[in-house]
């Protein structure tokens, strides 16, 4: 075996070659060509097989399985988007996303992280669209933002795990109010500003006409809180001041400082509302 042969059959080269075969774009022939250009080796030098058909059958288990396995994961995370787009269109976007941005994380919790961004990047830029056209182009990315927030609501730390958190008193602000208490939104909570009330699609049937069932609103943003209580997901539609108030709580803030940031006349209303929704972490000192 000469030096070149040793290099092209080294462990690193074998792994580089198979990774290219599995993750690069196109049909198997294109993938093999790409792998050869990167790793400098052909399938005949790599895979034990009696025939080309056998080589292809064996490689196809990995090539096909890679895409199917990860598309299934994205379908699990984005069921509403899948229903909205239908299987064929959803899979087209999902496969393109996986090819353009292959996973570099050890956890599948990160796999769908960039999907809404990807959908937004692939939106065509068209002048003079109608409201319905605009809705159809922009809604998929917004559904993906909403569903990603729901997935994180179920995964990240909430207000239930008191004993594993320094946030010893969950939820309700105690009376009399301790202005030195710290307050913060839990990691499981996401605050969204959306153009459409995408959550209303959750109740629609599988064969509904989405553009008819959604209450289109182009004039002002819609604010939404996504979190969980006792491990159950919750959505709360917010008014603008509520969204701004909770946004201030995404970093730890003292209750006194939070109240000082809002008009004196609104404080009672604000405290009543915070107690009603009962979704924050509060730490008494």
């Amino acid at each position: 075996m000469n030096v070149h042969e040793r290099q092209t059959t080294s462990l690193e080269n074998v792994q580089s070659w198979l990774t290219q075969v599995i993750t690069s774009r196109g049909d198997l022939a294109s993938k093999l060509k790409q792998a050869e250009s990167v790793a400098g080796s052909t399938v005949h030098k790599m895979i034990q097989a009696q025939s080309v058909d056998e080589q292809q059958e064996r490689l196809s288990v990995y090539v096909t399985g890679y895409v199917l396995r990860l598309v299934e994961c994205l379908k699990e995370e984005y069921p509403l988007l899948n229903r909205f787009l239908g299987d064929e269109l959803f899979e087209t976007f999902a496969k393109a996303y996986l090819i353009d941005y292959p996973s570099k994380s050890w956890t599948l919790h990160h796999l769908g992280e960039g999907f809404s961004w990807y959908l937004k990047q692939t939106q065509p830029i068209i002048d003079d669209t109608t409201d319905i056209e605009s809705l159809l182009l922009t809604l998929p990315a917004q559904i993906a933002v909403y569903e990603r927030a729901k997935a994180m609501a179920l995964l990240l730390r909430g207000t239930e795990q008191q004993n594993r958190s320094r946030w010893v008193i969950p939820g309700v602000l105690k009376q009399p109010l301790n202005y030195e208490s710290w307050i913060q939104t839990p990691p499981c909570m996401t605050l969204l500003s959306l153009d459409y009330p995408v959550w209303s699609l959750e109740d629609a049937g599988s064969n509904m006409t989405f553009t008819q069932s959604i209450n289109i609103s182009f004039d002002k943003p819609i604010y939404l809180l996504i979190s969980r209580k006792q491990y159950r997901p919750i959505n709360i539609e917010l008014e603008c001041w509520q969204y701004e108030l909770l946004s201030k709580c995404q970093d730890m803030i003292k209750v006194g400082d939070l109240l000082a940031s809002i008009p004196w006349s609104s404080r009672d209303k604000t405290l009543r509302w915070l107690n009603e929704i009962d979704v924050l972490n509060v730490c008494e000192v």
Partner: protein
Amino acid sequence: MANNQTVDAFPHLGFGIGLRTKHYEWLLSHSEWGVDWFEIISENFIGNEGYGRHVLDTIRTVVPIVMHGVSLNLGSTDALNLEYLKRLKQLADELNPKWVSDHLCWTGHAGINTHDLLPLPLNEQSLEHTCNRVEQVQELLQRTLVIENPSSYLEFKQSTIPEWAFLSELVDRTGCRLLIDVNNIHVCSVNHGYDPYVYLNQLPVEAIVQCHLAGATASGNLLIDTHSKPIAREVWALYRHLVNKTDALSTMIEWDADIPEFPTLVAELNKARAIAAGDDIPEGLSQKETSDHPISNPIPI
């Protein structure tokens, strides 16, 4: 090898099942589960502070658990992912599993994770490389690692060592233990044309601490490790052979696609109990041809 576990640290756990999301409600609403222990997928619980962790914390107060990983990327020429290993150790320190396992495989190269368990060319170079990695991981985790034989659909021309010899050498050089997936041996014996009994007979029996059972699916000329079916008769026969060679084998069933209700899984597990107790091998389902693309190693969630 720097770790604190001894032979006694690998107790016989009995008969277990892989913990999956589908069964959370059933498990919390029943007090009799019919299983002795659970295996969790490590990556599903790293950074998980939701309902899954709540269920796991409830379960592990009742029965032992073991942690089974799919992202260690043991055979890869990429550098070990120290952030992953740090979080894996943190989880193990929190959960106190009976042991931590992963696969003789690699999952990606140049930073890419295919989330598949890819086969290694089995030769001196990869053996030395894998031994070094196992020793590093054991040092970082401060535990003896348990390593599983993977299912595979291709062999590299660069391979010069049979898998059983590779695993035996790995055990000798690093002190690691083995998780033997009997279904994977069956799948590979069909796909690569070897005698599965020769494979089993050559393994260092004293190093085997756990066994996986699962169902496979035939597709074309290959058998695919789909974890989607009852266990085949050939696999039960191999299991009987393995059980007869070992004193006490912690046994579990993996079922990750078309997952049945929990009592159905327990019924399948009870067949393993019966075989280990000396009963006849049950009639397994035949592995019928499928027209779809069956997925090997489906994501366990």
